[in-house]
């Protein structure tokens, strides 16, 4: 009886509890999203109105050579980071896991340390280390390639270099995810498989890998989304240069919006990036899930 009488009150409480979130969400997410969609069909500047021009922005974008260069660079960057960082993190996690107690914590802390640095510090460290004249890593280049290389000013070296910096910076988090995944595999499965006659490699391929697959799929998907959104490192290290050889989609958005004052055009690009990320990540996650079920 009491339940029925309190229904109205119940609803009121529920409403007041979700209202703050809904309000904030509407203000800082839903409204801007709708505005971006609307802006992408106008020739608006960053601030102020603009006229409705239909699909003009999109037509322009599809004819923009820089868009294709940036798209290609985004793809190249994903290739350089997503799978390598996953493989490296898995290897590190497998090694760290074999350490005991205190040593494990220490090793994990060391690998995680770069992740807590802000991006500007990370890029500054690497800019110094790779400095053409005084960089501590240049002797290494001299030994391998024969001459020092201004990596962030060289069209061939710039993307791989940014990729290395990115992997170094974000790898600790993936190690952490893998380590959590590895700890979830009960140790008696390894004992059972040892009794069943599995070698270390067979234990990895037949026990660890299939049971870790959900974590691998998660890491790959998170990395894919993260690396498609690459901006800060490029902006801070090479500013898209030289000759747009490290230009990426979000850098294009930034330039169009905040340097060229083309709010409408920038909105169109960011919407395309958004749809691209959604499409690719959903596709990838589904593919990985199917493989996982096998």
């Amino acid at each position: 009886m009491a339940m029925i009488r309190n229904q109205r009150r119940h609803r009121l409480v529920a409403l007041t509890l979700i209202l703050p979130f809904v309000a904030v969400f509407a203000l800082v997410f839903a409204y801007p999203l709708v505005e971006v969609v609307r802006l992408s069909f106008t020739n608006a500047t960053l601030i102020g109105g603009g006229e409705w021009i239909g699909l003009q922005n999109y037509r322009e974008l599809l004819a923009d050579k820089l868009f294709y260069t940036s798209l290609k660079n985004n793809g190249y960057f994903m290739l350089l980071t997503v799978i390598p960082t996953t493989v490296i993190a898995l290897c590190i996690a497998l090694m760290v896991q074999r350490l005991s107690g205190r040593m494990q914590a220490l090793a994990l802390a060391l690998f995680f340390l770069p992740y807590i640095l802000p991006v500007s510090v990370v890029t500054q460290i690497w800019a110094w280390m790779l400095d053409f004249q005084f960089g501590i890593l240049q002797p290494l280049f001299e030994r391998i390639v024969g001459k020092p290389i201004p990596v962030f000013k060289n069209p061939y070296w710039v993307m791989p270099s940014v990729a290395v910096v990115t992997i170094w910076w974000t790898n600790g988090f993936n190690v952490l995810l893998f380590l959590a995944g590895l700890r979830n595999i009960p140790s008696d499965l390894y004992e059972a498989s040892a009794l069943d006659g599995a070698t270390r490699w067979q234990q990895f391929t037949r026990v660890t890998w299939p049971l870790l697959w959900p974590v691998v799929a998660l890491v790959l998907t998170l990395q894919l989304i993260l690396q498609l959104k690459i901006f800060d490192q490029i902006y801070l290290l090479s500013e898209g240069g030289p000759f747009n050889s490290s230009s990426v989609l979000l850098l294009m958005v930034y330039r169009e919006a905040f340097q060229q004052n083309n709010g409408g055009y920038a909105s169109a690009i960011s919407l395309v990036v958004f749809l691209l990320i959604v499409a690719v990540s959903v596709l990838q996650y589904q593919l990985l899930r199917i493989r996982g079920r096998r």
Partner: protein
Amino acid sequence: MSGVVLRNVAKSFGAVNVIKDVSLTVNKGEFGVFVGPSGCGKSTLLRMIAGLEDTTGGTIQIGGRDVTHTEPAKRGVAMVFQSYALYPHLSVAENMAFSLRLARTSRDERERKVREAARILQLTDHLDKRPAELSGGQRQRVAIGRAIVREPEVFLFDEPLSNLDAELRVQMRLELSRLHQQIGATMIYVTHDQVEAMTLADEIFVLKGGSVQQSGAPLHLYDDPDNRFVAGFIGSPAMNFINGRVIGHTPQGIRVLAEDGEVEVDLETRPAEGMAVVLGIRPEHLVPAESGITVTVEMAEELGGNAYMHSRLPSGGDIVFERRGERDRLEGQNVRLRAEAGHIHCFTTEGLRLR
């Protein structure tokens, strides 16, 4: 030929000696049970036989081969874990065939063996399911099936029934007994439950503090324990212990003053008068009588056919005695109990048996 032979086996983790100089033999085809309270080293000992723990000292032989330093897979043992340790991503059939796949057994043979094991364990309808879709008892049977297909010389069971509910546990106990008769392999079984030990074992090894206290057939341990620990551990409800003092000798043994009652005990040795002893009497051997040790009945556990009377000595100790077929209630009453001289065990205050 012998099944499993342990000679002076020892194991220490750092400075802690977990297993101290254990020597024992489980004959080929026998069902041996390691039983003891938690922390007695029984699981460690089993894992040493399996090769999952290093052996610090001594030798382990399986089927006449010294396997002390052999890797687990080559010892000819299969183990059933307490947690079952089934591969969650594989079907029941794949779980059972796992070791055969690793050994590159032909597909036909693999299927034949898995089907045979499934038939024995009544798992034929579940071969395509994943472990998560099975009940506890079925998972347990898959774990056993995984051991069977390997056709090992020795089966090792590490508390395999402790995750099952009471009813299922009794059922699986019977199935294990039947399985042992059916395949006739050597089996070693670890449990802390002395009922499991009594019902399954050909030979029980009672462990405490990393060493074997006594070994032998279940009824031998029950009737003739070597020390107070074994006497108290084997049997349910446990044996009653009453402090007493030797007050005289009889032709067959001694007379003991225990609490307020005088008790005669058959004994070959004749401990000196005045010596403190501990009498051990099983619940079924205590009967109400005109004279004897006085107890106050506090509670009755009526089981229908028999009843366990929980009662208290004047000095505070617990006494349990059994009654059969009587229906009158004794709660709150004072009862005098006696036992036949031949049914009373006598221990020193240190816990050693006096014979």
